[in-house]
């Protein structure tokens, strides 16, 4: 799966969990600026794990600050 494909799938997942306007769903947007609180983030990560059949370790999960970070983590974990 290419980075673009991962990003598109992530956007779909995030949209299912939380109403976020398009302009805030960019790779550089901080999750907190997009209105994603800690519980939302846990729910989104859970949905990502389910959809991509991966397990995101706690330290990697804690390091995610932006949507772009999410894409990178998924990309890395898919390679391994």
């Amino acid at each position, binding site marked *: 799966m290419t980075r673009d494909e991962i990003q598109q799938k992530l956007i779909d997942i995030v949209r299912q969990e*939380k*109403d976020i306007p398009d302009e805030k769903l960019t790779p550089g947007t901080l999750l907190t600026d997009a209105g994603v609180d800690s*519980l*939302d983030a*846990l*729910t989104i*990560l*859970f949905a990502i794990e389910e959809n991509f059949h991966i397990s995101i370790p706690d330290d990697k999960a804690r390091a995610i600050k932006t949507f772009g970070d999410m894409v990178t983590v998924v990309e890395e974990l898919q390679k391994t």
Partner: protein
Amino acid sequence: MTRVAITGLGIISPFGRGRAVACAAMRDGRSGIRRISSIDTSALNCKIGGEVPAEAHQGAFKGFDRFSRFALIAAEEAMQQAATGKNVDAERFGVIIGTGLGGCETLDGAFRRVYKEGQSRVPPASIPWSMYNAAASAVSAHFGAKGVAYTPVSACASSAHAIGQAFQAIRAGDADVMIAGGADAPLTFGIILAWESMRVLAIDNEHPEKACRPFSADRKGLVLAEGAAALVLESFEHAQRRDANVLGEIVGFGITSDAGHLTDPSADGAARAMRLALRDLAASEVGYINAHGTATRANDATETTAIKAVLGDRVPASSTKSMHGHAMGASGAIEIVCSLVALNDGFLPPTINLENPDPACDLDYVPNASRPLRVPVFLSNSFGFGGMNGVVAVRTIHGL
């Protein structure tokens, strides 16, 4: 003594969203019980319930369990009616929302994944969505209520206790304004199955609207339901200062325990709660009782005995559960809101499906049709499993 005004009423019920549809159902004697459509009932014997129609709540307040979403919808309507604006001190503004079973949908869905679908984990919001105080917390956060806030859990008496405790918080001077009520959403596969095992459900899948028959000789049991209702309560002084429209007054609260059997009710515990609710009133003022009236064999006869012991046989007592079913911990609040909108409109809500009177139930249950009458004060009875009883006395606009 501080008087406690009712300045807002909100409800979401099997009749739909809002006071107007609930009031119309009370007036017309219309059942809200139907075939359940929100879950797959093919493996259940019981396929009916007092389900809140999907269009009444879809899209509202995403990110909470179903019972919390119901609480938010009911509280929002009550707060809009109260129209408090910015005239409330946040630290003297509180929330008490009772529930019997909490976030059933969340837990049922989470455990189904593991036990049935063979998955290894449950969603991360399972705990904060399902906890019993989730609804009270959501309402507190949404309306910025920073004072007294918690959740009483006492089965079917939970929201009677919530309203009674909110009344006492204002009387004690601990709050100026309280949102009080109850919410429950128990129409999940596991909970319905558990009630089936108790053999107290009225299962008439072909005629859902006829299933619940309180006080009738051929009553078969209760019909599970869901929903929420909320009242805005405030001290009279606070309401008058902001020139609020007063809809009624809480004038008494009785709380007792049977200290007896887990599921068999006691007339003594119920009667003592009614007497406590009446302690600051003349009993002659009571013109209506909204009975607990579950339509189980045990409750209806026992409650009739209790009512006669306290008020004799002169006061009409109906069970609106015949129309909205038994929404567990939300039922007391739903019944107080349904009663007050009906009585303020000048009529008594009926007990529907009362075709075959039971000799052991010999009061005036307002059978089958609402009745034009203005009454100054009514009682709302709630008696929970575990022998926990709550009775709330309410003055209508006709008695103010």
